[in-house]
């Protein structure tokens, strides 16, 4: 009930936009290859489920694998940089610079270097995913409450105890917000990586639909991507609630 009260407005707005869309397409008789009506997209989605589901599965697997690798790498980088402040000063600006390279322009390079297999795809997703984790984790470590840190030092905690017992648990909320961003990016990264050449996947389905002017299917793909991102996001929120104990006092 509470959920409906909180999210009801947004859902209503979404429905309203869809209705407007439907109305405009019907009244103006917009051709289907240009802009299909929501109802057409919906019925196409239902028709496509049996064949499309293997594509969805493939993309989901790719995204989850890439996300896992990307966030692990990101986490390890963050911890290493945190443990070595001097290196962090050196490397951090480069990390930020690296984010100014649009992933899509790296694609040709990755294909030249690694071919069309799984590896270049995972590299792309990993590249998209690791950065939010690094930033969020470093932020979380750095913002550890000074009085708790002081207490731990007075208590004679070693550097690793300080990290495992204080800095890591303290950074979890921050880490999770980074992870949620990465998770959303991972689906996008997976689709982009599939454009580089794959046998199946939402990205493949999209390119095929586009070249045959099946705009309705392109929209099916788009909505599926949105849905997937939301599901991954929601799952992570669930994990977050289980993992983060006791509310933080601010």
């Amino acid at each position: 009930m509470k959920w409906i009260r909180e999210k009801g407005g947004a859902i209503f707005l979404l429905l309203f936009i869809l209705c407007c869309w439907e109305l405009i397409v019907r009244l103006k008789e917009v051709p289907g290859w240009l802009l299909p009506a929501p109802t057409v997209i919906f019925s196409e989605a239902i028709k496509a489920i049996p064949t499309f589901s293997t594509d969805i599965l493939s993309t989901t697997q790719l995204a989850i694998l890439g996300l896992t690798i990307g966030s692990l790498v990101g986490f390890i980088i963050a911890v290493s940089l945190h443990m070595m402040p001097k290196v962090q000063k050196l490397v951090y600006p480069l990390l930020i610079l690296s984010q100014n390279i649009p992933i899509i322009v790296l694609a040709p390079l990755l294909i030249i270097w690694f071919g069309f297999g799984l590896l270049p795809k995972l590299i792309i997703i990993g590249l998209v995913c690791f950065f939010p984790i690094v930033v969020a984790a470093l932020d979380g470590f750095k913002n550890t409450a000074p009085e708790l840190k002081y207490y731990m030092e007075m208590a004679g905690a070693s550097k690793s105890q300080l990290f495992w017992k204080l800095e890591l648990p303290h950074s979890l909320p921050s880490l999770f917000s980074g992870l949620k961003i990465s998770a959303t990016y991972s689906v996008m990264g997976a689709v982009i990586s599939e454009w580089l050449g794959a046998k199946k996947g939402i990205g493949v389905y999209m390119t095929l639909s586009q070249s045959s002017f099946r705009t309705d299917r392109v929209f099916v793909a788009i909505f599926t991507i949105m849905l997937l991102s939301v599901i991954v996001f929601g799952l992570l929120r669930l994990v977050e609630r289980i993992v983060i104990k006791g509310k933080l006092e601010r």
Partner: protein
Amino acid sequence: MLLKMNHIEKSFGTTQVLHDISIHVEDGEFVALLGPSGSGKSTIFNLIGGMATPDEGTISLNDKIIHGQKGLIGYMPQQPSLFPWRTVIENVVLMQELSGKPNYEEASEWLEKVGLRDFEKSYPIELSGGMKQRVAFIRALLSKQNLLCLDEPFSALDEFTRIEMQKWLLSVWEENRKSILFVTHSIEEAIFLADRIYILTKRPATIKEEIKVPFARPREESLLNTNEFFQLKQKLFNLLKDEIEVGE
């Protein structure tokens, strides 16, 4: 003699913070450091706790020099500094965790003794200010160190809670009798709790006077209303008056 600070000098850059500080705490003694705000009381704790080293002079615990060595004292900070993601009992055993295996049974017994049994599994956010300080004190107590350093632990509490907490601290201490070094800027608190009081001057801090508190233990709240208490309070007040800078 448990703790001994001998002619300590400490400066930060060009500012001298401590000058010729010599204090000692005997086994089972309750000693208060009383001084105006910003008189370098926390610096003394930093030195004892190994967070800083003295420029001159020595600090020894059980006749061993302890400069720069951390984790040798039980410490209770001004803020309760409980870890919000740990339950009360998990917080209490934290110090033990750092040096070995935590003893949950003992922790549980202590929590029961101080009336926090029902809160064992609660998170700190569910506790009141006084309860948090009790947890923080038990945590320091269970660190198994013979000297407890308490840094203005009740200064953030309201008046009524503070008196309750002082009485509570005394009752726990009567049972346990660990040595306590207690930093405070409240004259009443120092007299009510301590066996001996060191009065610090303003920066650079020196020991202005050492005062023995003549009242017998166990002490009751009624002590606060006796004439002797009032006279001692007045005496300390006059000593401290010169140390308070106007406009501070």
